[in-house]
Structures are given as C-alpha cells and as structure tokens.
C-alpha cells in the first residue's frame, strides 16, 4: 500500500540511533504514523518539528503495518514562531489535541481549517479567535459538536449568551439568567453573524467553553498530558493578548 498526501507533523519520537517514528495528520488519510529512516540526522531535525506542513509518501506492505514515511517540507510553521512563545504554545496545544483524532480517519475540513489557522500564526490579534473556532471544529469532527444555532429551550435564534455544560446547546439570555452560575458563557464571535474583532474577554470565554468540553469529552491515555499543553497556552494567552490589546 502506498499513499501520498499533505500533512501536519504531530509528534516525532527517536527510534534507535538514527531513525524516528513520525506521527502526522494527513488531509485525506487522517492521523498516521510511519518509520522515518534518518529522522535524527542534523538535516532532518529542522524538518521534523511539530506543526510543520509537509508532503508525505507513506508505504507499507499491508495497510495495518507501521509503514515507512518520507517527508518534504512545504511550510515551516515552527520556524515562524520559534521566538514567539504564545505561537509555540499554540502549535504544541494544537498538535497535542490532534492526537485525539482516531488513526486513519480522514477529517478534511479540520485539516483545511488547521492550515488556515496556522497561516495566521504571526498575527496575535487574529489567531486566538481562529484557534477557538478550530477547537470547536475539532469537537464537531470528533462527534461532540456544540449546537450554537438556537436556544435549547425555546429554539430562539436571538440573544444567545450561554451554553449548557450538559448538552452543549446554546441558551438564550431569558432562559439562562436564573441558572447563569451553572452555565458557560457563549462569546458572540462564535455565532455566525458576528463580524467585529472579538475582545480579550470573549476569546478567554471561548477558550473556557471549548476547554470545558475538550476535558469532559476527550479522554484517552494521554488526556491529562494533552490538557497540560493546552493549559500552558491559555495562561500565555491571558498575558499576551492583554498586552496586545
């Protein structure tokens, strides 16, 4: 079996003295792993940074095998943000969350949005809002999408300001007001008709919202470690975007 595609590098582990096991999120084949011969060489180390956009060729005798992978760099997103700590934290968090994607399960929409978000890595006033939307898309693609279109109780499409932590549905102001301490705030930039630039508080509310559902619904062996990477991002963003604003 042989496949070639574009991909984002999720993780790289040393294998023996010279090789590496590379985990990538491909556009058409989902998350796959492969054995990369020479992956620890000086030349390949720059290529094998998490978050980099690469072209891959993966081949194995049987599709169930680990397979061998060859990579060629398209865009080095890691190099773009190597001096930008919040950008680095975003790369680490995004790639860590990509590990929740089941192996060999394609998510073309999520891949395209990932590349779109990564293209704004140098712009701290833009990417935090896009990143929150990316996390919402991840939840959606994994089957845990939130319904933010209408109020869960009244079906109203106006004045949606809360989200139910139990159902993940939007709640209108009138319905949610008596229970506001138990509900999650719904930042307005996550609603389809919102066009203005989100405020710092709205972005932090967005991260709180997606963070709640990521922690509650995505669990695996590395779950808590993945959420550690995300926690670091949230802490950094709190200080960074406040400075920019």
């Amino acid at each position: 079996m042989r496949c070639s595609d574009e991909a984002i590098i999720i993780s790289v582990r040393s294998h023996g003295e010279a090789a590496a096991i590379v985990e990538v999120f491909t556009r058409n084949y989902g998350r796959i792993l492969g054995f990369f011969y020479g992956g620890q060489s000086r030349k390949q180390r720059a290529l094998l940074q998490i978050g980099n956009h690469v072209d891959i060729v993966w081949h194995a005798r049987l599709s169930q095998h680990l397979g061998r992978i060859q990579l060629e760099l398209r865009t080095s997103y890691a190099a773009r943000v190597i001096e930008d700590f919040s950008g680095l934290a975003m790369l680490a968090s995004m790639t860590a969350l990509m590990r929740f994607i089941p192996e060999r399960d394609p998510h073309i929409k999520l891949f395209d949005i990932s590349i779109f978000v990564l293209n704004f890595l140098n712009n701290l006033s833009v990417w935090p809002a896009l990143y929150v939307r990316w996390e919402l898309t991840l939840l959606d693609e994994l089957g845990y999408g939130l319904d933010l279109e209408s109020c869960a109780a009244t079906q109203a499409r106006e004045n949606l300001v809360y989200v139910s932590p139990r159902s993940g549905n939007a709640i209108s102001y009138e319905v949610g007001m008596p229970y506001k301490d138990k509900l999650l705030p719904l930042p307005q930039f996550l609603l389809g008709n919102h066009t203005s630039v989100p405020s710092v508080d709205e972005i932090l509310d967005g991260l709180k919202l997606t963070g709640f559902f990521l922690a509650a619904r995505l669990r695996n062996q590395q779950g808590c470690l993945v959420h550690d990477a995300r926690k670091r991002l949230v802490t950094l963003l709190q200080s960074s975007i406040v400075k920019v604003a």
Partner: protein
Amino acid sequence: MNTNNINGPEIDRIIQLMTRLPGLGRRSARKATLELIKRRSDLLIPLANAMRVAADRLIDCPKCGNIDTVSPCTICADKQRDSGLIIVVEEIADLWALERATAIKGLFHVLGGHLSPLDGIGPDQLNITKLIERARDSVVKEIILALNLTVEGQSTAHYLVDSLKEVDVKITQLAHGVPMGGELDYMDEGTIAAAIQLRREVLL
C-alpha cells in the same frame, strides 16, 4: 558469524554490553572487544580499572546537575569562571559542546531534558527549582538560555523566562540563524526561515 560458539561467556558479555553504546553495532563491538582482549595489559586492565573508579565516584553535582567524580563538579569549583553568568543547557552533551567552543567562561546549569507533555515530562521532572534558587543569589547577573532550537526547547525556554521573572537577573538567549561556513544553497528550509524571521539591522 555467531560469537556464542567461539567465545567464553565473559567475552560474549563484553560484546553484548558494547553493542548498547551509541555508534557501535555488533560488528564494531566485536572489533573493539577483540582489540581489548589482545591488548590486555596496556588497554583492557587500565580501562576496566578506570571505569570501575569512575563508576564508584560518579556523582550528580548538587549545584548544577552536571555529572562528575567530584562534588561540586570541576566547572562549579573553578574559581577562574565568571560566577555571575549561568548558562542553562538541556543535557550534559550540550555543556560539553559549549565548553569545546571555548566562547564563554561561565557556570552551567543542566536541566536534564526539555518540557514534553506528550512524553510525560513536566517542570517537576527537570532541574528547574535549583536554577531559580541559584538565580536568586545576588552574584548572578546574567542567565543565558542555551536550549535547543526546537519547539520543545523554546517552550522550555519560555517556561524558564516565566519562572525567573520575579528574580532580578538579565536573561538572554542564543542567536539563531545561518551557521559559520553555512552556504544558503545547502541549508535546510527551517534554518533559512528562522534566519529570515530573526534578521537584524546591519549597523555601520
């Protein structure tokens, strides 16, 4: 060729252990072992003695995390070094590399790795608390973060900057970009991208 049939178990054990060293496959391990057993008096016995003595005396430096046979390590005990300067590195190999360059004569601090959430390495697994303690010493004027230019290395650098922000000390980082003797045509895209990203104004 299988050595099990032609050597005693002691020699086979040496070959087996040699293959665990980096850069040595079974063939190279056999060659090295053969050389050792041929030169028993001038190589094998002195080497075995030296290794035994080192193994008995090796100790982690309580100050910087380096491994040496004396405590504090030779570098920490060196009075010729600038005690106001601490160079933070990930591994002892990085310390040796910086010493080979002889570009700076400061003290070192070995973290013992970098932050890697996916591998379960968090701040508690690294030698960070000791660094903060050392940085609080009024003698220390500058801390150079000489960490690897990888996403994990730079994330660790940020964590250190954040942890040291309460301490009144200058924090610097190694420059990144085109290496000495580097020709752009042969350079990898990541290095070129980082060099472009971190370009600086030419001062006349």
